[in-house]
């Protein structure tokens, strides 16, 4: 195999909107979708004389996230002003954390490679800090035509909403790894219940720092690094993937043309254009990167005792990776099955465990979760908490199948009844389908009749093609819907072998 032309190097900055009722420094609502400028007050409007007061819950959620990301929680953390002018930032500065962030130096483990050869990789985190969100600029189409009107409208409802900015080291080596990192991070945040992670509503936003390393022709030389580009406007995980692929190829091509490496050209900010699938240079004024951070005199520092950190650590729920490992070791299900179930979210994983606690075998529960339950949820486009079939009912059905009372095919019919009729109980659904366990004698007779009527099948089986029996299963089902296909096959083979 040829050596790759270049290696893609990516670090991600993820802004997570924390699930608090009120904003980071005032008690206005953070609810999404309210009419413009109805969730504002002197503090978040940046009016003179107002004083910000820190939201205690935001600190708790930041600690919870930091601990789950294996970060060191600061015993002493403070607030700084990041100064810049933009119409959606009424104060002229953003309250953020510069040199003493609340969380530092963690990592997130991701899975890389495909199923059979999958390995785990640690993506190190530089830090995670709290900061306030800016407002929203709404472009007014109607005003564009009327030059007398200014044509950007500003809604400050979002201004001051708590964000946790999670910054990774440039440990990510491909678009796929970036997607894997984001998927695992989102899952973790959902398990922790610290954020809605809704990209459409902007509660999870991603910027990517991308460059490429090109092998040096001099065997003793270090790889050549291209100038770093920050890619913004990434509105979906798919967009992140595509943008990284595009941007790394673009940088390699550009380097082939101009030979400029890191330090020989300034860091650029480029915007992702999802429609055209390209990144474009964002208009940037020379001074824009000069944020002149300084400590915010309106806010006092936060001291966090070790005992409080311990308390939060103790209260953490089981994290996705721990759950996957436990499902494999405790229930002996395949790692792949554990992965599918855990990755569907905490509610799905809990539903699965309930099935086992209510008597189903783990293997059968895992199979039904992945096929029947998840498919129905997808078809009906609903979440598990809206699902008509309670864990209790499904477990009852799976136990009935396990005991041989009905086969899997008829079990699916019962399942469909349970899905369509939320009122019906398992026993009633089984009865309504006329399902009764067929006794062995009746089955033997049925099989004997079928074999007598199909001598060609008997011949095929005798000449070594046991699979030919399969054609009799359908006929058996027609004669008696309760016939268990597995039993039909076994009995027919026994009868033929004995003849």
């Amino acid at each position, binding site marked *: 195999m040829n050596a790759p032309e270049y290696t893609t190097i990516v670090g991600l900055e993820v802004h997570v909107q924390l699930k608090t009722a009120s904003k980071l420094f005032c008690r206005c*609502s953070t609810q999404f979708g309210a009419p413009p*400028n109805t969730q*504002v007050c002197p503090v978040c409007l940046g009016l003179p004389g107002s004083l910000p007061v*820190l939201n205690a819950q935001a600190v708790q959620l930041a600690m919870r996230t930091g601990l789950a990301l294996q970060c060191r929680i600061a015993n002493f953390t403070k607030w700084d002003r990041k100064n810049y002018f933009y119409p959606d930032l009424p104060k002229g500065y953003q309250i953020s954390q510069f040199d003493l962030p609340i969380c530092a130096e963690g990592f997130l483990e991701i899975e890389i490679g495909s199923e059979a050869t999958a390995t785990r990789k640690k993506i190190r985190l530089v830090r995670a800090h709290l900061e306030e969100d800016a407002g929203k600029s709404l472009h007014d189409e109607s005003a564009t035509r009327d030059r007398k009107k200014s044509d950007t409208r500003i*809604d400050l409802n979002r201004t001051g909403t708590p964000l946790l900015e999670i910054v990774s080291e440039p440990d990510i080596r491909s678009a796929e790894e970036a997607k894997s990192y984001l998927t695992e991070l989102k899952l973790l945040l959902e398990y922790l219940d610290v954020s809605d992670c809704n990209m459409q509503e902007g509660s999870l936003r991603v910027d990517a720092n991308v460059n490429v390393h090109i092998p040096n022709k001099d065997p003793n030389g270090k790889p050549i690094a291209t100038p770093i580009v920050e890619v913004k406007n990434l509105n979906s995980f798919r967009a992140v993937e595509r943008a990284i692929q595009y941007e790394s190829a673009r940088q390699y091509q550009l380097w082939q043309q101009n030979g400029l490496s890191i330090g020989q050209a300034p860091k650029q900010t480029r915007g992702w254009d999802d429609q055209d699938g390209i990144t474009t240079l964002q208009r940037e004024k020379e001074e824009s990167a000069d944020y002149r951070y300084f400590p915010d*005199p309106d806010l*006092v*520092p936060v001291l966090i005792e070790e005992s409080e950190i311990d308390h939060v650590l103790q209260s953490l729920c089981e994290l996705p990776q721990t759950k996957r490992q436990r499902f494999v070791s405790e229930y002996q299900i395949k790692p792949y099955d554990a992965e599918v179930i855990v990755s569907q979210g905490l509610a799905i994983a809990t539903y699965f465990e309930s099935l086992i606690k209510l008597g189903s075998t783990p293997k059968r529960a895992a199979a039904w979760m992945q096929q029947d339950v998840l498919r129905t949820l997808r078809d009906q486009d609903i979440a598990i908490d809206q699902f008509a079939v309670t864990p209790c009912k499904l477990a009852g059905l799976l136990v009935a199948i396990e005991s041989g009372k009905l086969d899997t095919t008829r079990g699916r019919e019962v399942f469909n009844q349970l899905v369509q009729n939320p009122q019906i109980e398992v026993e009633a659904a089984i009865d309504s389908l006329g399902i009764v366990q067929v006794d062995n004698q009746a089955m033997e007779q049925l099989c004997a009749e079928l074999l007598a009527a199909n001598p060609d099948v008997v011949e095929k089986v005798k000449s070594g093609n046991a699979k030919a029996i399969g054609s009799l299963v359908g006929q058996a089902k027609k004669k008696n819907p309760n016939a268990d296909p597995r039993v039909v096959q076994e009995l027919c083979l026994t009868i033929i072998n004995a003849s």
Partner: protein
Amino acid sequence: MSLDRAQVAKIALLARLSLSEQELDSATEQLGKIVGLFRQLEQVNTDGIEPLVHAIELHNVLAADQLAPSIERELALKNAPSADDECFRVNAVL
């Protein structure tokens, strides 16, 4: 080392202050004096002294995450140089 005119012009730009040539001269002189004062402070030996991050000896001023009423939109928009019924209006931002 004192501040030069170009540095002050850059600071003014960052602060969105439009200074006349004359104002730039006086600001350069005044800011230069302030920087000089800090140079003087730098002479003090601070070995072994904990950095002070805040002038007030307070910490952990926190509020519970409970909603309080916002203000009326009309009031919020009242003093804006330009607004419509719902939003602040500004010159086009690209």
